[in-house]
Protein backbone atom coordinates (compact mmCIF):
# COMPACT_ATOMS: atom_id res chain seq x y z
CA UNK A 1 0.00 0.00 0.00
CA UNK A 2 2.71 2.41 0.98
CA UNK A 3 4.63 1.76 -2.20
CA UNK A 4 1.59 2.24 -4.35
CA UNK A 5 0.83 5.43 -2.58
CA UNK A 6 4.34 6.69 -2.98
CA UNK A 7 4.62 5.90 -6.65
CA UNK A 8 1.32 7.58 -7.28
CA UNK A 9 2.41 10.62 -5.39
CA UNK A 10 5.73 10.74 -7.16
CA UNK A 11 4.09 10.30 -10.51
CA UNK A 12 1.77 13.17 -9.74
CA UNK A 13 4.65 15.35 -8.73
CA UNK A 14 6.63 14.48 -11.81
CA UNK A 15 9.51 13.01 -9.84
CA UNK A 16 11.58 10.59 -11.85
CA UNK A 17 13.43 7.52 -10.70
CA UNK A 18 16.69 9.38 -11.05
CA UNK A 19 16.04 10.75 -7.57
CA UNK A 20 15.26 7.44 -5.99
CA UNK A 21 18.00 7.96 -3.40
CA UNK A 22 15.99 10.80 -1.95
CA UNK A 23 12.99 8.74 -1.14
CA UNK A 24 13.94 7.73 2.35
CA UNK A 25 13.02 11.14 3.59
CA UNK A 26 9.80 11.18 1.71
CA UNK A 27 9.06 7.73 2.99
CA UNK A 28 9.15 9.06 6.51
CA UNK A 29 6.78 11.83 5.64
CA UNK A 30 4.53 9.39 3.89
CA UNK A 31 4.16 7.27 6.98
CA UNK A 32 1.44 9.56 8.12
CA UNK A 33 -0.46 9.74 4.87
CA UNK A 34 -4.16 9.18 5.38
CA UNK A 35 -4.06 6.14 3.14
CA UNK A 36 -1.23 4.60 5.10
CA UNK A 37 -2.57 4.89 8.57
CA UNK A 38 -4.91 2.29 9.94
CA UNK A 39 -8.57 2.99 10.58
CA UNK A 40 -8.12 6.51 9.41
CA UNK A 41 -11.39 6.65 7.54
CA UNK A 42 -14.31 4.44 6.80
CA UNK A 43 -13.87 4.91 3.08
CA UNK A 44 -12.86 2.15 0.75
CA UNK A 45 -9.10 1.86 0.46
CA UNK A 46 -9.44 2.10 -3.30
CA UNK A 47 -10.22 5.74 -2.78
CA UNK A 48 -6.54 6.43 -2.44
CA UNK A 49 -6.22 6.00 -6.18
CA UNK A 50 -8.52 8.90 -6.80
CA UNK A 51 -6.70 11.92 -8.08
CA UNK A 52 -8.24 14.36 -5.61
CA UNK A 53 -6.33 12.55 -2.86
CA UNK A 54 -3.10 13.29 -4.62
CA UNK A 55 -3.18 17.01 -4.81
CA UNK A 56 0.31 17.79 -3.46
CA UNK A 57 -0.81 20.37 -0.95
CA UNK A 58 -3.51 18.09 0.43
CA UNK A 59 -1.21 15.12 0.59
CA UNK A 60 1.57 16.99 2.34
CA UNK A 61 -0.78 18.65 4.74
CA UNK A 62 -2.11 15.22 5.62
CA UNK A 63 1.44 13.92 5.92
CA UNK A 64 2.44 16.60 8.38
CA UNK A 65 -0.75 16.79 10.43
CA UNK A 66 -0.20 13.62 12.39
CA UNK A 67 3.56 13.88 12.64
CA UNK A 68 5.21 10.98 14.43
CA UNK A 69 8.27 11.48 16.60
CA UNK A 70 10.48 10.11 13.81
CA UNK A 71 9.05 12.60 11.36
CA UNK A 72 9.41 15.37 13.90
CA UNK A 73 13.10 14.56 14.29
CA UNK A 74 13.51 14.37 10.52
CA UNK A 75 11.93 17.80 10.08
CA UNK A 76 14.07 19.24 12.86
CA UNK A 77 17.15 17.69 11.33
CA UNK A 78 16.45 19.35 8.01
CA UNK A 79 15.87 22.75 9.62
CA UNK A 80 18.94 22.43 11.82
CA UNK A 81 21.09 21.48 8.83
CA UNK A 82 19.81 24.57 7.07
CA UNK A 83 20.62 26.73 10.09
CA UNK A 84 24.15 25.32 10.21
CA UNK A 85 24.41 26.15 6.52
CA UNK A 86 23.84 29.79 7.45
CA UNK A 87 25.96 29.74 10.58
CA UNK A 88 28.39 26.90 11.34
CA UNK A 89 29.19 25.51 14.78
CA UNK A 90 31.96 27.21 16.76
CA UNK A 91 35.11 25.14 16.30
CA UNK A 92 35.65 24.37 19.96
CA UNK A 93 34.97 20.76 20.95
CA UNK A 94 35.19 21.50 24.69
CA UNK A 95 32.60 24.24 24.41
CA UNK A 96 30.23 22.09 22.36
CA UNK A 97 30.61 19.15 24.72
CA UNK A 98 30.00 21.36 27.75
CA UNK A 99 26.83 22.84 26.27
CA UNK A 100 25.58 19.34 25.39
CA UNK A 101 26.14 18.15 28.96
CA UNK A 102 24.27 21.08 30.48
CA UNK A 103 21.51 20.91 27.86
CA UNK A 104 20.98 17.20 28.14
CA UNK A 105 20.80 17.41 31.92
CA UNK A 106 18.17 20.14 31.72
CA UNK A 107 16.24 18.27 29.01
CA UNK A 108 16.20 15.19 31.24
CA UNK A 109 13.96 17.16 33.60
CA UNK A 110 11.33 17.58 30.87
CA UNK A 111 8.51 15.26 29.86
CA UNK A 112 10.36 14.51 26.62
CA UNK A 113 13.62 13.39 28.17
CA UNK A 114 14.00 10.55 25.67
CA UNK A 115 14.32 12.71 22.54
CA UNK A 116 17.78 12.56 20.91
CA UNK A 117 18.66 16.01 22.24
CA UNK A 118 21.52 17.79 20.50
CA UNK A 119 22.90 21.20 21.36
CA UNK A 120 25.24 23.50 19.51
CA UNK A 121 26.87 26.92 19.77
CA UNK A 122 26.80 28.61 16.38
CA UNK A 123 29.41 31.06 15.20
CA UNK A 124 27.38 34.25 15.04
CA UNK A 125 27.78 37.56 16.85
CA UNK A 126 23.99 37.85 16.94
CA UNK A 127 22.35 37.46 20.34
CA UNK A 128 19.85 34.67 19.90
CA UNK A 129 18.94 31.03 20.46
CA UNK A 130 17.00 28.62 18.27
CA UNK A 131 15.34 25.27 18.49
CA UNK A 132 13.86 22.85 16.00
CA UNK A 133 11.41 19.96 16.36
CA UNK A 134 12.79 16.71 17.64
CA UNK A 135 15.29 18.11 20.15
CA UNK A 136 17.70 20.42 18.31
CA UNK A 137 18.81 23.48 20.28
CA UNK A 138 21.25 26.20 19.27
CA UNK A 139 22.67 29.25 21.00
CA UNK A 140 24.72 31.89 19.24
CA UNK A 141 28.22 32.76 20.38
CA UNK A 142 26.94 36.33 20.84
CA UNK A 143 24.44 35.21 23.46
CA UNK A 144 26.83 32.70 25.03
CA UNK A 145 29.32 35.52 25.61
CA UNK A 146 26.68 37.40 27.61
CA UNK A 147 26.36 34.55 30.11
CA UNK A 148 28.14 34.55 33.45
CA UNK A 149 27.49 31.11 34.87
CA UNK A 150 26.07 27.65 34.18
CA UNK A 151 22.64 28.43 35.64
CA UNK A 152 22.17 31.18 33.06
CA UNK A 153 23.06 28.76 30.27
CA UNK A 154 20.64 26.23 31.78
CA UNK A 155 17.87 28.85 31.76
CA UNK A 156 18.44 29.81 28.12
CA UNK A 157 18.60 26.17 27.00
CA UNK A 158 15.55 25.45 29.17
CA UNK A 159 13.57 28.07 27.25
CA UNK A 160 14.48 26.41 23.93
CA UNK A 161 13.86 22.91 25.31
CA UNK A 162 10.38 24.09 26.30
CA UNK A 163 9.63 25.13 22.71
CA UNK A 164 10.52 21.61 21.57
CA UNK A 165 8.58 19.95 24.38
CA UNK A 166 5.47 21.99 23.59
CA UNK A 167 6.04 21.57 19.81
CA UNK A 168 5.70 25.29 19.23
CA UNK A 169 7.64 25.27 15.94
CA UNK A 170 6.05 22.06 14.74
CA UNK A 171 2.66 23.72 15.06
CA UNK A 172 3.88 26.54 12.83
CA UNK A 173 5.15 24.06 10.26
CA UNK A 174 1.76 22.41 10.35
CA UNK A 175 0.07 25.65 9.38
CA UNK A 176 -1.34 25.31 5.93
CA UNK A 177 0.27 28.45 4.59
CA UNK A 178 3.71 27.11 5.24
CA UNK A 179 2.87 23.68 3.89
CA UNK A 180 1.43 25.41 0.85
CA UNK A 181 4.81 26.91 0.10
CA UNK A 182 6.54 23.58 0.52
CA UNK A 183 3.97 21.84 -1.59
CA UNK A 184 4.34 24.43 -4.33
CA UNK A 185 8.06 23.91 -4.37
CA UNK A 186 7.62 20.18 -4.51
CA UNK A 187 5.08 20.45 -7.31
CA UNK A 188 7.17 22.85 -9.32
CA UNK A 189 10.49 21.13 -9.24
CA UNK A 190 11.99 18.31 -7.28
CA UNK A 191 15.36 18.29 -8.86
CA UNK A 192 18.22 16.72 -6.98
CA UNK A 193 17.05 17.86 -3.55
CA UNK A 194 15.63 15.68 -0.90
CA UNK A 195 11.89 15.49 -0.70
CA UNK A 196 12.00 16.93 2.77
CA UNK A 197 14.06 19.87 1.62
CA UNK A 198 11.37 20.57 -0.90
CA UNK A 199 8.79 20.25 1.78
CA UNK A 200 10.55 22.41 4.33
CA UNK A 201 12.21 24.71 1.86
CA UNK A 202 15.91 25.30 1.80
CA UNK A 203 15.88 28.05 4.42
CA UNK A 204 15.75 27.94 8.18
CA UNK A 205 13.50 30.94 8.53
CA UNK A 206 10.87 28.95 10.38
CA UNK A 207 13.37 28.74 13.25
CA UNK A 208 13.26 32.48 13.52
CA UNK A 209 9.55 32.74 12.85
CA UNK A 210 7.78 34.84 15.42
CA UNK A 211 5.85 32.56 17.72
CA UNK A 212 2.75 33.60 19.57
CA UNK A 213 3.87 35.76 22.49
CA UNK A 214 2.12 33.41 24.88
CA UNK A 215 4.31 30.60 23.55
CA UNK A 216 7.35 32.70 24.47
CA UNK A 217 6.03 33.46 27.95
CA UNK A 218 5.25 29.78 28.43
CA UNK A 219 8.77 28.81 27.31
CA UNK A 220 10.18 31.32 29.81
CA UNK A 221 8.13 29.87 32.66
CA UNK A 222 9.05 26.32 31.71
CA UNK A 223 12.71 27.14 31.08
CA UNK A 224 13.02 28.67 34.54
CA UNK A 225 11.44 25.60 36.15
CA UNK A 226 13.46 23.09 34.09
CA UNK A 227 16.67 24.77 35.25
CA UNK A 228 15.42 24.74 38.85
CA UNK A 229 14.47 21.06 38.59
CA UNK A 230 17.99 20.37 37.36
CA UNK A 231 19.32 21.87 40.60
CA UNK A 232 20.37 25.22 39.19
CA UNK A 233 19.57 28.66 40.54
CA UNK A 234 16.13 29.26 39.03
CA UNK A 235 16.91 32.89 38.32
CA UNK A 236 19.46 32.37 35.55
CA UNK A 237 16.98 33.01 32.76
CA UNK A 238 15.57 36.29 34.14
CA UNK A 239 19.15 37.42 34.77
CA UNK A 240 19.91 36.83 31.08
CA UNK A 241 16.76 38.73 30.12
CA UNK A 242 18.06 41.66 32.15
CA UNK A 243 21.43 41.34 30.46
CA UNK A 244 19.83 41.38 27.01
CA UNK A 245 17.75 44.35 28.11
CA UNK A 246 20.97 46.29 28.56
CA UNK A 247 21.78 45.99 24.85
CA UNK A 248 20.62 49.05 22.96
CA UNK A 249 17.46 48.15 21.02
CA UNK A 250 19.01 49.65 17.90
CA UNK A 251 22.03 47.34 18.07
CA UNK A 252 22.05 44.98 15.09
CA UNK A 253 22.98 42.01 17.25
CA UNK A 254 19.51 41.95 18.81
CA UNK A 255 17.49 42.94 15.73
CA UNK A 256 16.19 39.46 14.98
CA UNK A 257 15.66 38.55 18.64
CA UNK A 258 13.66 41.70 19.32
CA UNK A 259 11.65 41.25 16.14
CA UNK A 260 10.59 37.73 17.06
CA UNK A 261 10.23 37.94 20.84
CA UNK A 262 8.39 40.18 23.28
CA UNK A 263 10.71 42.83 24.76
CA UNK A 264 12.99 41.43 27.50
CA UNK A 265 11.52 43.72 30.17
CA UNK A 266 8.02 42.44 29.35
CA UNK A 267 9.24 38.82 29.55
CA UNK A 268 10.91 39.63 32.87
CA UNK A 269 7.71 41.19 34.22
CA UNK A 270 5.66 38.18 33.10
CA UNK A 271 8.08 35.86 34.90
CA UNK A 272 7.82 38.08 37.94
CA UNK A 273 4.03 37.68 37.93
CA UNK A 274 4.22 33.95 37.32
CA UNK A 275 6.77 33.23 40.05
CA UNK A 276 5.45 35.50 42.82
CA UNK A 277 6.15 33.65 46.06
CA UNK A 278 5.82 30.17 44.50
CA UNK A 279 9.52 29.35 44.73
CA UNK A 280 10.07 30.72 48.23
CA UNK A 281 10.57 27.29 49.74
CA UNK A 282 12.51 25.66 46.91
CA UNK A 283 16.05 24.95 48.13
CA UNK A 284 18.60 27.38 46.67
CA UNK A 285 20.07 26.08 43.43
CA UNK A 286 23.58 26.39 42.11
CA UNK A 287 24.95 29.02 39.75
CA UNK A 288 28.19 27.14 39.04
CA UNK A 289 30.15 30.15 37.87
CA UNK A 290 33.44 28.33 38.40
CA UNK A 291 32.60 25.47 36.09
CA UNK A 292 31.18 27.76 33.38
CA UNK A 293 33.18 27.31 30.17
CA UNK A 294 34.39 30.69 29.06
CA UNK A 295 35.27 31.44 25.46
CA UNK A 296 38.70 32.82 24.84
Amino acid at each position, binding site marked *: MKKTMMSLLLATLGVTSAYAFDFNDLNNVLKQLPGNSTNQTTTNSDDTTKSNKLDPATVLLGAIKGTSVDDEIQIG*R*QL*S*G*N*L*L*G*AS*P*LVKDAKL*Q*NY*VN*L*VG*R*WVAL*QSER*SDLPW*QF*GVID*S*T*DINAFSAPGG*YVFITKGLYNKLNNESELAGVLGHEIAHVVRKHQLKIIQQSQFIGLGADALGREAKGQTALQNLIG*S*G*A*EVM*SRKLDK*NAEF*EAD*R*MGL*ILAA*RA*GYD*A*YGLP*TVLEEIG*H*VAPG*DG*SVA*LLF*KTHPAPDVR*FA*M*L*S*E*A*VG*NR*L*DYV*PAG*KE*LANRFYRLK
Partner: protein
Amino acid sequence: MIYRRGLSALLLSVSLLSGAAIAATQGILIKSETVYAQPSSSAKRIASLSKGSSVNVITKQGGWLQVGVGASKGWVRMLSVRTSGAVASNSGADFAGIAQMATGKRQPGKIVATAGVRGLSEEDLKSAHYSERGMSELAGYKVSASEAKNFAKQGKLVKQNIAYLPAPVTNQ
Protein backbone atom coordinates in the same frame (compact mmCIF):
# COMPACT_ATOMS: atom_id res chain seq x y z
CA MET B 1 46.17 56.84 14.82
CA ILE B 2 45.11 59.68 17.01
CA TYR B 3 41.65 58.19 16.97
CA ARG B 4 42.95 54.82 18.12
CA ARG B 5 44.83 56.31 21.00
CA GLY B 6 41.63 58.08 21.98
CA LEU B 7 39.80 54.79 21.83
CA SER B 8 42.20 52.96 24.11
CA ALA B 9 42.00 55.82 26.58
CA LEU B 10 38.24 55.47 26.43
CA LEU B 11 38.44 51.71 26.99
CA LEU B 12 40.70 52.20 29.97
CA SER B 13 38.20 54.56 31.53
CA VAL B 14 35.44 52.06 30.84
CA SER B 15 37.27 49.29 32.66
CA LEU B 16 37.81 51.58 35.62
CA LEU B 17 34.18 52.55 35.57
CA SER B 18 32.88 49.01 35.33
CA GLY B 19 34.46 48.09 38.64
CA ALA B 20 32.49 50.83 40.27
CA ALA B 21 29.35 49.90 38.38
CA ILE B 22 29.27 46.35 39.71
CA ALA B 23 29.35 47.79 43.20
CA ALA B 24 26.14 49.72 42.63
CA THR B 25 23.78 48.99 39.77
CA GLN B 26 20.65 51.06 39.58
CA GLY B 27 17.35 49.25 39.86
CA ILE B 28 13.69 50.20 39.71
CA LEU B 29 10.89 48.35 41.47
CA ILE B 30 8.39 46.99 38.95
CA LYS B 31 5.93 46.25 41.75
CA SER B 32 5.50 47.27 45.35
CA GLU B 33 7.64 45.10 47.58
CA THR B 34 8.56 44.24 51.11
CA VAL B 35 12.18 44.68 52.11
CA TYR B 36 13.47 41.86 54.32
CA ALA B 37 16.43 41.74 56.67
CA GLN B 38 17.61 38.47 55.06
CA PRO B 39 17.12 36.89 51.60
CA SER B 40 13.99 35.03 52.67
CA SER B 41 10.30 35.87 52.87
CA SER B 42 10.27 34.45 56.40
CA ALA B 43 12.89 36.97 57.55
CA LYS B 44 12.10 40.14 59.42
CA ARG B 45 10.31 42.78 57.34
CA ILE B 46 12.19 46.02 57.58
CA ALA B 47 10.51 48.29 55.06
CA SER B 48 8.31 48.44 52.04
CA LEU B 49 9.00 50.02 48.67
CA SER B 50 6.41 51.23 46.23
CA LYS B 51 6.40 50.49 42.52
CA GLY B 52 8.77 52.78 40.65
CA SER B 53 11.15 53.28 43.60
CA SER B 54 14.85 53.51 42.73
CA VAL B 55 17.31 51.30 44.55
CA ASN B 56 21.01 50.55 44.41
CA VAL B 57 21.60 46.89 43.79
CA ILE B 58 24.45 45.65 45.96
CA THR B 59 24.48 41.91 45.31
CA LYS B 60 22.38 38.95 44.17
CA GLN B 61 21.74 35.73 46.05
CA GLY B 62 19.45 33.26 44.33
CA GLY B 63 16.08 34.92 43.88
CA TRP B 64 17.01 37.87 46.07
CA LEU B 65 18.80 41.15 45.59
CA GLN B 66 20.40 43.08 48.38
CA VAL B 67 19.51 46.69 47.77
CA GLY B 68 20.34 49.98 49.33
CA VAL B 69 17.85 52.78 49.67
CA GLY B 70 19.50 55.85 51.03
CA ALA B 71 21.46 54.72 54.07
CA SER B 72 19.54 51.49 54.73
CA LYS B 73 19.96 48.04 53.21
CA GLY B 74 17.73 45.03 52.79
CA TRP B 75 16.65 42.20 50.51
CA VAL B 76 13.92 42.24 47.88
CA ARG B 77 12.79 39.68 45.32
CA MET B 78 15.05 39.70 42.29
CA LEU B 79 12.05 39.44 39.97
CA SER B 80 10.58 42.66 41.39
CA VAL B 81 13.57 44.81 40.43
CA ARG B 82 14.41 45.74 36.89
CA THR B 83 17.97 46.85 36.29
CA SER B 84 17.85 47.12 32.50
CA GLY B 85 16.83 50.57 31.39
CA ALA B 86 16.61 51.57 35.04
CA VAL B 87 18.99 54.48 34.78
CA ALA B 88 18.13 56.99 37.43
CA SER B 89 21.08 59.34 37.44
CA ASN B 90 23.04 61.10 34.73
CA SER B 91 26.25 59.36 35.66
CA GLY B 92 24.45 56.05 35.27
CA ALA B 93 23.27 57.04 31.82
CA ASP B 94 26.80 57.94 30.81
CA PHE B 95 28.08 54.63 32.01
CA ALA B 96 25.44 52.66 30.14
CA GLY B 97 26.25 54.48 26.94
CA ILE B 98 29.97 53.94 27.24
CA ALA B 99 29.55 50.30 28.17
CA GLN B 100 27.49 49.73 25.06
CA MET B 101 30.15 51.33 22.94
CA ALA B 102 32.70 49.04 24.50
CA THR B 103 30.74 45.87 23.93
CA GLY B 104 28.60 46.71 20.94
CA LYS B 105 29.23 46.42 17.25
CA ARG B 106 29.78 50.10 16.68
CA GLN B 107 33.18 50.16 18.24
CA PRO B 108 35.72 50.37 15.40
CA GLY B 109 38.43 48.32 17.11
CA LYS B 110 36.01 45.52 17.84
CA ILE B 111 34.98 45.16 14.22
CA VAL B 112 38.56 44.52 13.21
CA ALA B 113 38.95 41.96 15.94
CA THR B 114 35.86 40.04 14.91
CA ALA B 115 36.35 40.20 11.14
CA GLY B 116 34.92 37.10 9.52
CA VAL B 117 32.40 36.57 12.24
CA ARG B 118 28.99 37.84 11.37
CA GLY B 119 25.48 38.27 12.58
CA LEU B 120 22.54 36.18 11.53
CA SER B 121 19.78 38.00 9.73
CA GLU B 122 16.42 36.82 8.52
CA GLU B 123 17.85 36.91 5.00
CA ASP B 124 20.72 34.62 6.00
CA LEU B 125 18.22 32.15 7.39
CA LYS B 126 15.96 32.33 4.33
CA SER B 127 18.74 31.56 1.92
CA ALA B 128 20.46 28.93 4.08
CA HIS B 129 21.34 25.59 2.53
CA TYR B 130 21.56 22.28 4.32
CA SER B 131 24.98 21.52 5.77
CA GLU B 132 25.63 17.79 6.00
CA ARG B 133 29.03 18.46 7.51
CA GLY B 134 27.52 20.70 10.15
CA MET B 135 25.04 18.01 11.12
CA SER B 136 27.70 15.33 11.45
CA GLU B 137 29.81 17.69 13.59
CA LEU B 138 26.74 18.34 15.75
CA ALA B 139 26.05 14.61 16.13
CA GLY B 140 29.66 14.11 17.22
CA TYR B 141 29.10 16.32 20.26
CA LYS B 142 25.94 14.56 21.39
CA VAL B 143 26.07 13.15 24.93
CA SER B 144 24.11 10.33 26.52
CA ALA B 145 21.70 10.66 29.42
CA SER B 146 24.14 8.84 31.69
CA GLU B 147 26.98 11.20 30.74
CA ALA B 148 24.71 14.13 31.58
CA LYS B 149 23.75 12.59 34.92
CA ASN B 150 27.39 12.07 35.75
CA PHE B 151 28.15 15.67 34.86
CA ALA B 152 25.34 16.84 37.14
CA LYS B 153 26.71 14.72 39.95
CA GLN B 154 30.17 16.26 39.53
CA GLY B 155 28.59 19.71 39.88
CA LYS B 156 26.67 18.54 42.97
CA LEU B 157 23.44 19.47 41.24
CA VAL B 158 20.47 18.09 43.14
CA LYS B 159 17.24 17.36 41.27
CA GLN B 160 14.19 19.19 42.58
CA ASN B 161 10.58 18.27 42.23
CA ILE B 162 8.89 21.48 41.11
CA ALA B 163 5.69 21.90 39.12
CA TYR B 164 5.57 24.16 36.08
CA LEU B 165 4.24 27.64 36.77
CA PRO B 166 0.70 28.44 35.66
CA ALA B 167 0.27 31.42 33.33
CA PRO B 168 -0.27 34.54 35.40
CA VAL B 169 -3.63 36.21 35.22
CA THR B 170 -2.97 39.63 33.77
CA ASN B 171 -4.87 42.31 31.98
CA GLN B 172 -2.32 42.53 29.19
